[in-house]
């Protein structure tokens, strides 16, 4: 059931272009194809220079976050028919905002990962673990931080967050989500350290509760709720 799909893609080649510009491609696609499949068709058969990141192609590796019709999405989690591509609607694709563009849809993720690292994204526990068994955790305690363990570090949330665009020092929602994952883990003892980091100048209070992040998250993490819980933990000392 092939149909014609038109993509309008923002292109930028640092070795050729002074500034970014749109190019339009019309290719055959199936309504059930992923936007990533359509990008691949363009790259493999029309224009080999089109550049984007991709890997797993089913929404778990976080490589292909980009702006699709103005919203941050994973190109492998949006189907042609989800955005009306099979009914003649043009699909507009751009790199995420708030990141430096390296080439076409590829943005510089290094600052994003540096912010992730800054909140100490690993279990901190100062007591010796049991010699030959696991640390116990109740099902209820495990459930508290379940949602924030789903983060795949794609950047869709941070790239849709106006305070993140505006303030290069703001850690952004993705880093806060990962802080939440540990602060609310009953086995962790680094909560105070992380709350201290997040309470500094550009920390968690930069959030303006716009909910863009929650809308953008391809893993359905309630990002804004996680940020709220951290603020409350700070104000009431957990």
């Amino acid at each position, binding site marked *: 059931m092939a149909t014609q799909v038109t993509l309008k893609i923002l292109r930028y080649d640092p070795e050729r272009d002074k500034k970014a510009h749109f190019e339009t491609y019309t290719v055959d696609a199936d309504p059930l194809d992923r936007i990533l499949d359509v990008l691949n068709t363009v790259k493999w058969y029309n224009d080999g220079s089109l*550049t984007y990141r991709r890997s797993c192609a089913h929404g778990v590796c976080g490589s292909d976050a980009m702006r699709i019709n103005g919203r941050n999405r994973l190109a492998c989690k949006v189907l042609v028919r989800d955005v009306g591509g099979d009914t003649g609607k043009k699909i507009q694709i751009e790199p995420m905002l708030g990141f430096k563009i390296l080439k076409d849809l590829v943005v510089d993720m290094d600052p994003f990962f540096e912010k992730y690292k800054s909140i100490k994204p690993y279990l901190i526990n100062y007591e010796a673990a049991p010699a030959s068994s696991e640390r116990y955790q109740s099902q209820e305690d495990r459930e508290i931080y379940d949602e924030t363990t789903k983060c795949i570090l794609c950047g869709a949330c941070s790239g849709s967050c106006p305070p993140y665009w505006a303030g290069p020092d703001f850690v952004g929602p993705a880093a806060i989500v990962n802080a939440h994952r540990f602060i609310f883990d009953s086995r962790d003892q680094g909560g105070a350290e992380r709350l201290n980091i997040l309470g500094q100048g550009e920390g968690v209070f930069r959030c303006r509760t716009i909910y863009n992040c929650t809308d953008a998250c391809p893993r359905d993490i309630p990002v804004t709720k996680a940020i709220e819980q951290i603020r409350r933990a700070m104000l009431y000392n957990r």
Partner: protein
Amino acid sequence: MYHKFDAVVVGAGGSGLMAALQLVGKANVACITKLYPSRSHTGAAQGGICAALGNTEEDHWEWHMFDTVKGGDYLTDQDAAEVLARDAIERIIEMEHMGLPFNRTPEGKIDQRRFGGHTRNFGEGPVRRACFAADRTGHMILQTLYQQGIKENVTFFNEFHVLDLLINNGRCVGVTALEIKTGELHTFHAKAVIFATGGFGRAWRVTSNAHACTGDGMAVAYRAGIPLMDMEMYQFHPTGLYRIGILLSEAARGEGGILRNANGERFCERYAPTLKDLAPRDMVSRFIYQEIKEGRGAGPNKDYVYLHVDHLGKDVIDAKLPDITDFARTYLHVEPYKEGVPIQPTAHFAMGGIPTNINGEVIMDEKATVLPGCYAAGEAACVSVHGANRLGTNSLVDLVVFGKRAGLKAVEYVHQNDWESLPANYETRSKELLGFVNAGSSDTKRTEIAGDIRKDLQNSMQDNVSIVRNETTLTNQMTKLAELRERYGRIRLQDKGTKFNTERMEALELGCLLDCAEAATKGALERKESRGAQYRDDYEKRDDVNFLAHTLAYRADSGGVKELRYKPVVITRFEPKERKY
């Protein structure tokens, strides 16, 4: 650019990270990856990681070892299976201590569930052995190990694509790699190199594997003179999402999900009366193949069957299988609460790879001669712990068990050995390779489109080197691969840039896929028997007299397989028997 490290780990998935974590602090180590570590394909693993913890019912590592050997149709090296089953227990506890958020039992221990081919008391019935974190166990392992890497300050080179393995005076002395962002060639001079580069599932059309799974490490080792072992043993997972191949974990069946044909019949119980839907993957994939072949497939083309979880109830589905049911909704617009999900077998896992001993040291021949300084682990390696068919969850066990052992052995090696110099002209082969690819953007006589070659490769492998093979399909594929290799020599590229040239990278990856596909097809052609994932309808029986042995494929300089040799299987506790479930 020149770098010098005691050890270089190539790949940052489960096994690469585990190896790097052994080295960091004890040696100067770099971990290079063509993605970012958190994008590695380990993160796509879903259902669980087995270890005989006995948290919910009686279990013993000997039972796990037996299941692994039997599951592998006795091609498994039993010394390796013993290490796997014993070490699994420690590694699970270690990762829990690192913070891995396993699901819990009511008393707070790590919860465990059933998985295909894992049994109690040497095959009596299913056992709860798979530790899990919902259906994103691989994601949580990858995250946890990457987080430890951050904590321990591992030096990562992200988005570096490996090109060549450097050997001098019989010792491994480093690798070269292309920095994708700049297009610059880098040489990593090292005492020890650990390949942890994953599999080559992108050689098939319907695959669960990421675009990145192109067998780079296998191909680079193979080109440097290292054989590839048991490449014909390639696993097709029974439950890939129809048409696109995205994996739906065996955990769905572990939790009670069942397969039904177009008539609504639970066909697995006809083939495997004891384990039914939880028989090992090679068998269930063949059951599906048979149902479809005999006209009991569903849909307009009668080419799929259904995976049902609707009878498990919304609570179980949401708590234990949230991701895979979401895949069905997103990609097929099917609601698993209410209806069966269309599935078909999907290319999934390489049991074969770079041969190693149980310490992760790469071996060069049937006598297990070690190449000093060279290590491999995970899917890129072949220990051989999975034999002719891997059991569900044992890939994750393999990553962490043998990633750790390779890392520890490399620590020992770098402390005991002095530096060996780089070979003369150590960049030559890499520059030739890059020169060949780059010329594709200027040489007007080069007219072949990489996308066409890749598509032809994937379609022909799907038709000829799939769940059922024979002399005709395999001979046809050898001819096809020779044609594809010739065409590959004339590929055209459009992107003339040096920075972030992913077209060039994809062309390099395609070259790696061709090497892996050749070794796999040749191995399958010469193995005139049926065993595990290798099922030949012209040789339907297992032949222990002639083929209770590992295939070692050596590459010809011009491409293609130069010769095959055979290495005996290590048998310690369990004599080969017929496999029944």
